[in-house]
């Protein structure tokens, strides 16, 4: 064994000079030379570098350098497969690399796997990259290697690309305090949870930022805006949404016009939702006024670059408050801007038209929207159609619409039942 190693050492010293000179020559050739070193050592030591060999520090050092150099050379030469293969080769056996250097190699492999294969991004590669990054983050959390914010960013990218937001949230929770400020961490976590479809958890996290513990911190603007946005989706949280939006507006006029317009929009939507669930009539009138004011403010601020959402919400609020003409103008504007692909917009337009007693027009709009709608949207549209037909005193037609509506629901239930087992398998 010992003799074998000495023999290898001699060969390597001879090769050392060649490999340095070869660096300046054509890269693939250099890589080939580098590979020879690795081949020699790997043949001599098939089970990796033994721990307790003394006097071979130089040998080990050169070998490790060659190990790290090979993938770099292939990368420069632009040979993707060889790069990955050589990284994997370096990691496949224990070569006594110190933790920091090992981490750098692992990180490089993960990055090549993650971003390198633009032409064909096989799923296995991304999975391998994710496993490597998870490993590295675990090591960072334990303290084996230095903290590297990039690793967390790459892991975030990889997990969001594959849609595993809850796993990502787990990793974000594991990060040590001090890496992110509290507000930032809550913001990132709530983004994860809302992407995973658990809005409730996201809102709970965001609400903590409204608490007294944060009153002396610098306010985290994206967090406030995101809170307002999430709360505007669910009428149950409209009061919290109002708080978020007010906090944002209280920060003063130092922010961009776009941000203010967004804040006004969410404030308006939340006021509208709150008005619909308020029990006192006086309170409702008050909230409705506020809602309309905020939405108008949002529309005014976004005049230069009118936003579809603002126009739509303003029109809905106008319709709720029976300002039919304004609602109709808004609905028509929205539908023309969106380019005829929004079921939501057409449905709203039909409702507003029916408020103007133009039932025939409303019905033909529904008919024409029905062709492009998805199944769930179709159910809503059919329901509206039945109501319209009833209002036109056409009970026979309404009955037909109702029965086709029930048939559609049955079909949905059936397809859902057949889908459930396949979902179980993928989990």
């Amino acid at each position, binding site marked *: 064994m010992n003799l074998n190693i000495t023999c290898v050492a001699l060969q390597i010293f001879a090769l050392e000079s060649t490999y340095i000179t070869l660096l300046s020559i054509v890269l693939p050739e250099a890589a080939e030379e580098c590979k020879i070193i690795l081949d020699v050592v790997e043949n001599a030591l098939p089970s990796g570098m033994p721990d307790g060999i003394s006097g071979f520090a130089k040998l080990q050092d050169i070998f490790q350098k060659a190990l790290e150099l090979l993938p770099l050379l292939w990368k420069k030469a632009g040979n993707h497969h060889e790069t990955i293969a050589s990284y994997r080769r370096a990691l496949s056996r224990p070569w006594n690399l110190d933790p920091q250097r090992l981490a750098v190699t692992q990180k490089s492999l993960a990055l090549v796997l993650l971003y390198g294969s633009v032409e064909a991004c096989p799923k296995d590669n991304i999975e391998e990259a994710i496993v490597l990054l998870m490993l590295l983050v675990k090591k960072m959390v334990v303290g084996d290697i230095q903290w590297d914010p990039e690793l967390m960013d790459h892991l975030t990218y990889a997990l969001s690309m594959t849609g*595993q937001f*809850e796993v990502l949230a787990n990793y974000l929770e594991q990060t040590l305090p001090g890496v992110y400020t509290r507000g930032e961490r809550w913001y990132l976590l709530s983004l994860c949870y809302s992407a995973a*479809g*658990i809005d409730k958890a996201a809102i709970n996290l965001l609400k903590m930022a409204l608490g007294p513990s944060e009153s002396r911190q610098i306010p985290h603007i994206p967090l406030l805006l995101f809170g307002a946005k999430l709360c505007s989706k669910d009428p149950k949280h409209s009061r919290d949404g109002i708080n978020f939006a007010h906090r944002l507006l209280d920060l003063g006029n130092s922010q961009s016009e776009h941000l203010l317009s967004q804040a006004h929009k969410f404030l308006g939507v939340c006021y509208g939702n709150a008005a619909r669930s308020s029990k006192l009539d006086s309170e409702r009138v008050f909230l409705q006024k506020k809602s309309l004011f905020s939405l108008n403010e949002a529309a005014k601020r976004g005049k230069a670059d009118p936003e579809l959402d603002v126009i739509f919400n303003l029109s809905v609020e106008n319709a709720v408050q029976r300002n039919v003409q304004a609602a109709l103008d808004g609905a028509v504007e929205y539908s023309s801007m969106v380019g005829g692909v929004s079921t939501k917009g057409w449905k709203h337009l039909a409702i507003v038209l029916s408020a103007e007693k133009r039932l025939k027009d409303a019905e033909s709009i529904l008919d024409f929207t029905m062709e492009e709608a998805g199944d769930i949207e179709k159910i809503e549209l059919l*329901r509206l159609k*039945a109501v319209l037909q*009833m209002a036109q005193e056409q009970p026979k037609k309404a*009955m037909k619409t*109702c*029965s086709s509506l029930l048939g559609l629901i049955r079909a949905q239930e059936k397809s859902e039942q057949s889908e459930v087992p396949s979902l179980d398998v993928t989990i």
Partner: protein
Amino acid sequence: MKETYSVNNLILCFQSLLQKFETEAWQDLASVYGKLGSWSDAETCLEKARSMCYYSPRGWNETGMEKRLQS
């Protein structure tokens, strides 16, 4: 484990949405029959709706209206 939870959550949401739509559809149909005056058909539809969602303001309102018209 957690992923299972969120997928199940989605399925549950979807099911309750479908159920809501179906209840409303039966109630609509009941009101059509009610307007036409065929009370037994309307009552059947309302019963269907009731079997899906017993505590429904609209369902009971419809029932009451029909009872009043019948008497």
